[in-house]
């Protein structure tokens, strides 16, 4: 194989890999990273790929920051007019309340108005263990251990009774959902209610926390050994041969090559650009507004002492 064909092949694979987008994953697909690494290794001195002239207006991370703006990929539920109306409603809500960027693994504090509480508001702090659903249905689950009692609360992102969402610690974890925290030792899901918000430098990438949690012994709520979890430390201790065998049986290693499945479970890139082009200006304005507010908040006028 001569050099030019190799370069071409590489470029082709890269293009193909870029087209395959998983809607709800918060990380860049592994094969993309691998491809990039290979390319770096294999063909450093040849002609560099021509730089893209046109700078994309829409930031590439929008599909991770605002995943709920992408509709459900199920063809039977798609309708362009409905999606547009839904997005308009979402933007209207976002103008009323600051819905910040957060990921599975981030620590959030949600203040919502509650008719049953004494002060008519309630605040819950916890780690986000899952994000799902699209559009106005988008929701997330917070988990915390308070007074040695584990508890979870489901919040809908666009629920108008939510008064404030604060991100106390912005980070990602190794997995797309952290339901295994239910079977982990309680210290892994314990967060102080009076936690101070940790600030992140502007423009810095969101850090990935590679902490490995320690699971309790069986019985578990789910068969975690079948889910290829990366954020679990001691799963092998509790596995017998029969568990390993049965888990090997249900593995589907060919699915990562199934392009049709990928296509069905994701929104194509062109459509994503179209959708985000529609909402980009307003989202960008909201982001700027948020930044301005933050700066205002950081400057605290010193109190005059008598």
């Amino acid at each position, binding site marked *: 194989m001569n050099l030019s064909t190799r370069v071409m092949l590489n470029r082709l694979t890269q293009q193909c890999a870029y087209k395959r987008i998983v809607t709800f994953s918060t990380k860049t697909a592994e094969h993309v990273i691998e491809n990039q690494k290979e390319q770096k290794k294999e063909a450093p001195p040849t002609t560099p790929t021509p730089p893209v002239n046109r700078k994309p207006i829409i930031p590439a991370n929008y599909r991770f920051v605002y995943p709920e703006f992408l509709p459900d990929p199920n063809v039977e539920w798609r309708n362009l*007019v409905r999606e547009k109306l839904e997005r308009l409603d979402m933007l209207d809500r976002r103008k009323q309340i600051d819905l910040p960027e957060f990921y599975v693994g981030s620590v959030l504090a949600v203040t919502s108005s509650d008719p049953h509480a004494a002060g008519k508001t309630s605040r819950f702090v916890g780690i986000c263990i899952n994000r799902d659903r699209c559009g106005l249905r988008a929701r997330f689950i917070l988990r915390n251990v308070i007074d040695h009692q584990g508890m979870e609360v489901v919040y*809908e992102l666009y629920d108008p009774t939510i008064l404030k969402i604060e991100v106390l610690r912005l980070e990602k974890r190794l997995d797309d959902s952290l339901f295994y925290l239910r079977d982990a030792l309680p210290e892994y899901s314990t967060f102080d209610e009076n936690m101070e918000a940790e600030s992140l430098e502007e423009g810095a990438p969101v850090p990935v926390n590679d902490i490995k949690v320690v699971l309790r012994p069986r019985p578990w709520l789910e068969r975690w050994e079948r889910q290829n979890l990366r954020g679990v430390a001691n799963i092998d201790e509790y596995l017998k041969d029969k568990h390993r065998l049965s888990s090997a049986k249900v593995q589907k290693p060919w699915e990562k090559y199934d392009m049709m499945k990928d296509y069905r479970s994701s929104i194509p890139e062109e459509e994503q650009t179209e959708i985000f082009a529609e909402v980009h200006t307003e989202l960008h304005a909201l982001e700027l507004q948020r930044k301005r507010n933050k700066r205002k908040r950081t400057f605290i006028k010193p109190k005059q002492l008598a």
Partner: protein
Amino acid sequence: MMRSVINQFLGLRLSGNCSVLVTQVRDKGHLSRPRLRNPQWFLRKEITKYNDLMTAENKQFVNEVGTNNFGVPAVIKDSLVKTEAPTANEAVWTPNLRRCGVIARKIGQYPLWLKNGERIRTTLLQIADNHVIKYIPPEEYLPAQVPKVANLHKRGCILVGSETTNPALLTKEYAGIFRNSGVLPKKNLARFIVSPEAQLAPGTPLTVNHFRIGDFVDVRGKTVDHGFQGVVKRHGFKGMPASHGVTKTHRRAGNIGGGGEKGRVWPGTKMPGHMGNRWRIIKGLRVWRINTKYNVMWVQGSSVAGPTGGLVYIYDTILPFRKNKEAPPFPTFYGEPQQDGDDLWYEQLHNFKSESITYENE
């Protein structure tokens, strides 16, 4: 029919022997089988497509013209044929009068919230490009299949079309229905039985303003077609155990009746069969919100029959306690819809443009 001919033939032959032979006819399906008779305005719709031997350029040109003029009509466009404005009917509404309905498409569902913080599920119905095609007065309206409507002989019929389409794809006869209406041929047609006072002139556009927020509507649609299904899916039977000696009867119905005096299958017994693809009317749904720009209305619940993108027909409700108490736009809404772009929200509904919901201390 074949059976009756054979019976007669047998009867003739046997009569020569002077003995009486009774042939039992156990099924009477041949007597009351429903025959599909098309409505009186029905004509074949689509033309047979021949290979026109057109050049590629010509074909492209024709397609371009077609899509430019008859592309997917999300919003009512100005009709190409300009007719004089349809005359407004001056009749006064009374509670017993029946208004015209509209044709809509179910375009999806999403949640809305009430002002007390409660979440409700709503279905979005888009009234795409509706025009009145024809009014048939009561004396001329003689349907082949008589609909179940009280005092039919006192009621007229309005033919409504929705979604303008490319006439080049239609037969001459079908396109002829639209000749005197002043609108271009439509993809979908429906008839609505109305009081003569509620008649509408051909060419009248029907928009979402035909209904008001807070009104109740009945929505008729065809349910999702599931095909031939067993009792577990069709009627929610439990099936039988997976093990403990059960063989070959895991998803079957089991017993279908007793013996003795009642030793037969009773009518209405739940059995396997075709599921879905039936007309169903969901009654008394509240209109929560209206968007006049896209002609969309949000109605209560997620039980409107049919798939997303399916056709549904919307009527004023017939439920006695939810019927219109005050006069609706009668016979329909005439005039320009308001163009400020904001939706109309029912008063109990939380508008996303207003502030978050808070509760007061008592």
